[in-house]
């Protein structure tokens, strides 16, 4: 395999690389890693991890002297750390620690602990980097310890003490939030906690101190396996107990809306009917809150991506997924006014939201009670939101709250003297803009409300 087909995100690890062969993701393993790979295979370690649902499964396609090629189970929609809610992030951190402990018990060790090695798939976090394992060397410290702190523990602490939006920092720091920065941002009281002091503040100091006199001969330190297990278990217990104080402004959104119960049920049954008629198997619900409307769909869905800007709503959805062991629901954090961009080297390491969703091609896009926020809070003209949805939607189910809707009125009132500037917000302008990108299938007004539902097909 020539390196020209190498996937642009796959260059950090010399053990092998990912490439795309006719739309299928495959992994080439270099002879450098043959010894490890064969050991992982013959000891059944891979199998154990895969059966326990911790590592993505794969099958071996070919073996030669130059390379081994494996094909991992294809993940339909890769999601990134900066798109996870607090508890999703926690789950990914716990998974990584769990795997490291299990690896140690089996004579292996994770050689890296990047948060990008994990993704949410089929109702849980799963490890997707098959080549992250190396032999455990007796009495050696965990080489990925610092990486774990900067990729997982640091961001989680920042989210807890400085606000959930801190989790977005991973978008800027693709190789983890610098530990010195984490230490400087955390409140003083974290220095009084011996666990946090040693794992964050002291670590920051040590890193600072040893930064300059580092000559590349990192022979020095040794650490017993038992001691390393103490670090892993200590982190696991601490992270497992971490929680956030919820200010659920949107958390109980449905209790607060201007919907009468009848209207709510009617809306749900309209959506259900359309999804059924379109025979949709995959949907994305943009602004889907905690997944309430998607769960009202009776038609069996293969997968539902439910995204929302609100961390608490995504967290509530995630909790529901875990408690009910759902596998089709994929919650993630998403700001429609600023979707995730292409980032990393050459801007090609991590794909933008648009690139991933275009490749995913959902059967139906749902945008319920979103358009007035996009148009009136985000000042996005109808023409532009229509264009955005048309880029990845085969079908669009969109709800339009008319001018007299109480939410619309509230948003308009915040515009003060510029309220007249938003006179364009009316149903005729909406329909004419959307007709440039979509063909109307059906339009239904919801009784006793100021809201209209549309089913569109992309032109």
């Amino acid at each position, binding site marked *: 395999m020539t390196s020209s087909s190498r996937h642009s995100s796959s260059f950090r690890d010399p053990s092998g690389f990912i490439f795309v062969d006719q739309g299928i993701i495959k992994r080439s393993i270099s002879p*450098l890693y043959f010894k490890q790979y064969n050991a992982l295979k013959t000891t059944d370690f891979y199998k154990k991890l895969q059966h326990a649902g911790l590592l993505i499964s794969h099958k071996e396609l070919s073996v030669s002297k130059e390379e081994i090629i494996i094909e991992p189970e294809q993940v339909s929609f890769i999601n990134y750390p900066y798109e996870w809610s607090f508890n999703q992030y926690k789950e990914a951190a716990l998974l990584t620690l*769990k795997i490291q402990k299990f690896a140690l018990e089996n004579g292996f060790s994770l050689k890296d602990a990047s948060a990008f090695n994990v993704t949410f798939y089929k109702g849980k976090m799963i490890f997707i980097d098959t080549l992250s394992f190396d032999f455990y060397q007796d009495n050696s410290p*965990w080489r990925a*310890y610092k990486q774990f702190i900067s990729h997982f523990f640091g961001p989680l602490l920042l989210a807890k003490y400085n606000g959930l939006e801190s989790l977005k920092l991973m978008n800027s720091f693709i190789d983890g939030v610098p530990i010195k920065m984490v230490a400087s941002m955390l409140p003083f009281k974290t220095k009084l906690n011996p666990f946090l002091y040693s794992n964050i503040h*002291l670590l920051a100091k040590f890193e600072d101190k040893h930064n300059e006199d580092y000559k590349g001969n990192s022979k020095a*330190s040794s650490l017993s396996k038992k001691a390393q297990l103490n670090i892993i278990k*200590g982190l696991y217990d601490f992270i497992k107990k971490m929680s956030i104080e919820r200010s659920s402004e949107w958390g109980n959104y449905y209790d607060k809306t201007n919907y009468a119960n009848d209207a709510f049920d009617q809306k749900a049954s309209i959506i259900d009917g359309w999804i059924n008629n379109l025979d949709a198997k995959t949907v994305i619900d943009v602004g889907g809150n905690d997944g309430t409307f998607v769960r009202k769909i009776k038609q069996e869905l293969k997968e539902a991506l439910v995204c929302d800007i609100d961390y608490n709503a995504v967290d509530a959805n995630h909790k529901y997924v875990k408690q009910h062991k759902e596998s089709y629901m994929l919650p993630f954090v998403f700001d429609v006014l600023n979707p995730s961009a292409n980032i990393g080297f050459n801007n090609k390491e991590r794909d933008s939201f648009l690139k991933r969703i275009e490749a995913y091609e959902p059967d139906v896009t749902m945008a319920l009670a979103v358009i007035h926020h996009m148009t009136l809070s985000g000042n996005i003209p109808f023409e532009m939101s229509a264009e955005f949805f048309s880029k990845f939607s085969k079908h669009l189910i969109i709800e339009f709250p008319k001018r007299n809707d109480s939410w619309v009125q509230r948003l308009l009132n915040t515009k003060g003297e510029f309220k007249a500037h938003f006179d364009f917000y009316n149903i005729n302008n909406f329909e004419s803009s959307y007709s440039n990108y979509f063909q109307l299938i059906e339009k239904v007004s919801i009784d006793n409300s100021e809201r209209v539902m549309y089913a569109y097909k992309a032109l």
Partner: protein
Amino acid sequence: MIHLLYFDPGLGAMIIQAIVAAVAGVLLFSKNLLYKIKLFLGISKPNDDVFDDIDVKDSDIESKSNSDKQ
């Protein structure tokens, strides 16, 4: 030692692990003791956590490998 090719683990981060492990060891020991005392006194709280313990259970590995064969 393939990992030497990969990335710099940070010398400070390697040295500090002995200290971190010692602190974690003390905390784990005391928490464990406290838990046992609470359990003995019957005041341990019920757990509504959605996350598992750290250990990979044998049953996880076996039950799923059986279903694979079918």
